[in-house]
């Protein structure tokens, strides 16, 4: 009888493909890449704006192409996925007890969506309220 514990190797790169829950997690983490790239493009737009009207018009034209639009749509899908998963977990991170009773998770998640809607409308109005 000897002790010789065996360590089962884990794939450092492929581990997340083994379980749907890990794939969902990696998808959530991946959203950061797309949103990060989108922010860089926005900054490039601001930079072009500071260069004058011609530079900005050129930026708008390049962002309007098939590649730009496809990227924007993918980023929006990822951003919605990120927002959804983030709001879903808020009751875990911020449990609320009012009057000695725990507030149901659905209410906390709902309040986040309501806040999201209010901020979105406020921003839209701030930007001129145009469609």
């Amino acid at each position, binding site marked *: *009888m*000897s*002790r*010789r*514990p*065996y*360590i*089962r190797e*884990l794939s*450092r790169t492929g*581990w*997340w493909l*083994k*379980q749907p*829950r*890990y794939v969902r*997690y990696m998808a959530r*983490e991946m959203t950061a890449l797309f949103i990060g790239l989108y922010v860089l493009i926005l900054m490039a737009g601001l930079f072009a704006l500071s260069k004058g009207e011609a530079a900005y018009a050129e930026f708008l034209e390049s962002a309007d192409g098939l590649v730009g639009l496809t990227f924007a749509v993918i980023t929006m899908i990822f951003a919605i996925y990120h927002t959804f998963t983030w709001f879903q*977990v808020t009751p*875990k*991170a*911020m*449990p609320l007890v009012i009057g*000695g009773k725990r507030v149901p998770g659905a209410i906390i998640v709902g309040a986040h969506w309501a806040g999201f809607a209010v901020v979105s409308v406020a921003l839209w109005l701030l930007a001129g309220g145009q469609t």
Partner: protein
Amino acid sequence: MSGRTVELEVLRYDPDQDDAPKFQTYTVPYREDWVVLDAINYVKDELDRTLSYRWSCHMAVCGSCGMLINGEPSLSCHTFLRDCPDKIRIEPLQNFPVERDLVVVMDDFIDKLGSVKPYVVAKEEKDVDEGEYLQTPAELAQYKQYTACINCLLCYSACPQYALNDSFVGPAALALAHRYNLDSRDIGRSAREEVVASNPGIWECSFVGACSEVCPKAVDPAAAIQQTKIASTADYFMKFLMPWKHK
């Protein structure tokens, strides 16, 4: 008796003979009211007494019989054969060294659990004669959920952060630290911070949430860790806002 059977593919490892684990298949009778542990006990009693595994209570209380059942960290006493396919793959909990067959080495967890002081650190020690440390039902409700942990290690087995970096203190130990931090009779929070609020503590967690999904007792360790992160972040900023409170 129906005559129906199920196949158990069990990962076997004998440190005296094997260089690596290998699967061995057993055919066991199917019973409507059997859990996977019953099927494994049948193997041990009737087919192969060399099979090693841990179990005790058979009712999801002792936390001993955790294993991977078709890749999912599960208590074998809590998983019915009727909810499984006819071929069931049984492996030791992943992310732990395999001692023998389905028995894993859990020393790492035991050390980490001890490091978070999982007990009430009272303001003043009282003699037993002086009576209990009293608490209201509302104070109990603050942490009761986290007392349900049975140290079964399913959460460690499900956690990819622990899999990739075993210095991570891990879900159950952090959830138990949170349990005592929330206890009105306890003043040990600052003593636990060194481990809990460190990088290998709560900050190694990236909120995969797998720990809470596999927890058989609805402890929700992921929630405990996120709440600890918020409390720890608040501490950090309060140090600047109210330095006199943190001398």
